[in-house]
């Protein structure tokens, strides 16, 4: 009898749907059916057993091909790369569990590496704004149960977070929102007429890259000041109308995405969005939330803030001091400035996401990819180490976009012999410690211990 596993968490986007039902074959080796998931989440489960998987680490050969090696050899290679580099970079973690992130941080600290996660090229600017201006946020449950005005600013959940609108924002019937969509006003602010804008009551087609000016206009209006006739391509009347709706809301949430983080000004766009949220709280209850991308990209922020006090771009090269300053210690800047001399890409695809110049710089040095699948990064690496897929083959804790931790479970076993991210990093840490001990022993032999020499026998 095939086994039905209920309440499974989905390892795709930051919404972290935890209501999936997965049907597994008799022998526990095949995933037969996935219910409740979106098309993308569905594909992640089916991909695990429906495709050819890499089961052993692969090391690049002089002729350019890959050769299978053992996990022990791979661990030794990775540890030596980290040990010998002056400033290695460990980047990724969008798609792994918090246990793996904590183990990787141990490795980074021992190796004196820079530790960074995908937020660096995504919602990292949100962190900077939050440092500067606070984070008046809430949980997705509060939005579902209370919100009667929803703003999507520079976000397109219809494609990036497919079940966000149906689970939490627009459609669900919550405790105080029994009429569902009928009782909610939806405002979408986006330069494009996206599929999310299709379901909006009001769509403000802001001029691309001028969100900051529009926020400034909203703030001036909320404080009762005059504004010019048109700001960022939006007419004054429309700004006044939306500001009035916002002020009259019972509970509102601004969900913002890459439209703010990836356009000019980045953290300042988010910063002023936070300021607007704070201003609106003079009238009613307003909250703001980042539309975090991957299912556990909120995780490294939580784990490393607990370990080091900073969520990303951690320069641990001084080992006992953690330094963070995006612009200097952020992955793409480090790569573009040629500031690192080894690269570990884990649980993401820097090959696909980084600017090509950054990839070219990183390729001058050893490049290791740790990923269950074949991706662009794995194909240009010197070493590719496969691991189990978190949420499918490996259990663990993940953080949802609203900073709520959820325990994920596994539904099948990983391919025989394939280990988890956590185990891999623990083994690299062990090997690094051994290498350090060997080096320390050598130095002992080199230096003559101080002391008085014994008199020779007469």
């Amino acid at each position: 009898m095939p086994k039905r596993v209920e309440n499974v968490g989905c390892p795709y986007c930051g919404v972290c749907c935890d209501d999936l039902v997965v049907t597994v074959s008799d022998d526990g080796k095949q995933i037969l059916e996935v219910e409740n998931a979106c098309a993308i989440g569905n594909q992640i489960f089916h991909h695990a057993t429906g495709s050819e998987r890499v089961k052993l680490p692969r090391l690049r050969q002089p002729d350019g091909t890959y050769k299978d090696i053992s996990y022990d050899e791979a661990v030794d290679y990775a540890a030596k790369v980290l040990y010998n580099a002056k400033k290695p970079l460990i980047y990724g973690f969008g798609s792994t569990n918090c246990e793996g992130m904590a183990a990787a941080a141990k490795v980074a600290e021992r190796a004196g590496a820079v530790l960074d996660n995908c937020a660096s090229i995504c919602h990292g600017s949100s962190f900077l704004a939050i440092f500067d201006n606070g984070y008046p946020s809430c949980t997705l449950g509060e939005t579902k149960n209370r919100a009667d005005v929803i703003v999507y600013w520079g976000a397109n959940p219809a494609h990036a977070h497919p079940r966000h609108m149906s689970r939490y924002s627009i459609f669900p019937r919550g405790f105080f929102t029994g009429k569902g969509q009928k009782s909610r006003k939806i405002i979408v602010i986006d330069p494009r007429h996206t599929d999310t804008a299709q379901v909006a009551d009001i769509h403000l087609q802001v001029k691309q890259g001028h969100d900051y000016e529009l926020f400034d206009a909203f703030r001036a209006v909320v404080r009762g000041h005059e504004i010019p006739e048109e700001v960022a391509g939006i007419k004054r009347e429309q700004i006044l109308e939306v500001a009035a709706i916002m002020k009259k809301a019972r509970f509102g949430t601004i969900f913002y995405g890459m439209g703010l983080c990836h356009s000019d000004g980045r953290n300042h766009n988010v910063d002023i969005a936070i300021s607007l949220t704070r201003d609106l709280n003079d009238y009613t209850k307003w909250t703001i939330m980042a539309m975090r991308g991957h299912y556990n990209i909120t995780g490294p922020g939580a784990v490393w803030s607990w370990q080091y006090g900073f969520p990303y771009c951690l320069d641990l090269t001084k080992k006992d001091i953690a330094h963070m300053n995006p612009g200097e210690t952020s992955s793409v800047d480090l790569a573009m400035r040629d500031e690192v001399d080894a690269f570990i890409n884990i649980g993401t695809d820097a090959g696909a996401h980084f600017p090509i110049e950054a990839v070219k710089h990183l390729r001058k040095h050893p490049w290791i990819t740790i990923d269950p699948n074949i991706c662009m990064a794995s194909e240009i690496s010197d070493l590719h180490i496969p691991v189990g897929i978190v949420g499918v083959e490996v259990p663990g804790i993940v953080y949802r976009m609203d900073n709520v931790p959820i325990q994920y479970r596994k539904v099948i076993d990983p391919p025989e012999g394939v280990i988890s991210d956590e185990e891999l990093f623990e083994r690299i840490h062990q090997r690094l410690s051994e290498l350090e001990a060997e080096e320390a022993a050598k130095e002992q032999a080199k230096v003559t211990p101080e002391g008085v020499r014994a008199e020779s026998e007469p």
Partner: protein
Amino acid sequence: MKTVTLTLTNPSELYIEGQNVTPDNFAGKKAAEIAALDVWEGKQKGPLGKYFTVEGDGGATAEETKIVLRGDCTRVKRIGQQMTAGEIVIEGNADMYIGGWMKGGKVHVKGNVDSFCGIGMEGGELIVDGNAGHHLGSSPRGEWRGMQGGVIRVAGNAGNDTATFINGGTIVIGGDADIHISTHGEGGTVIVKGNARGRVGGQMVKGDIYVYGTIENPLPGFSMVDEVEQEVDGETARFVHYIGDLGERHPVSRGKTVYANLYTRL
């Protein structure tokens, strides 16, 4: 005043972090002792003498110590960081954090500098003959008390995020400035003699900004009040006077609301 000359003869593979290159650290030290000071290249700590040849001894105190850097210091960070007195002359370019958190003394860079120069500055003088990168005279990440005092002069252009959270002091940019000037500012003065791209004085509470050229995208939160004649940086000129950022909170002093001032030259 005694002069210590550092010449970069053996450039690093990665970047050098030279926070020890300050008159404060060189004072009272002989050339050989200075060469033994620590600098970092990634996780490797090495003596300064590994990269630089050191000539001359430090003065008795920081005030009496002058440091001259020769050779291409494009890949040297943190020169003059946290210095309190004395003088540093960098003959060419330098990298990030030059004069960061400085409290006194003078740094003169004859070439260009990269980002984060003069951040968290409390006093002293930072002069750049070329261009400066981003975050010039800005506050460190998450710090809401930015530049407190001192003077920064850049002859060329500056990048974005100049003077974020500025609280005091003066920044003079001879050329153009990119977006975000004095964002979240609560005091101080920024003078841009060229053009500014936009977002000038966003979320600004108090303080002054002068723009001699044009502002490509002015903020809706600034409102024109009058025309004034003012003396700025040694010359008198007429300016259009705006107040703002009207969207931001503003303190009330003696019954009057205090706004930030933006002046554009007529």
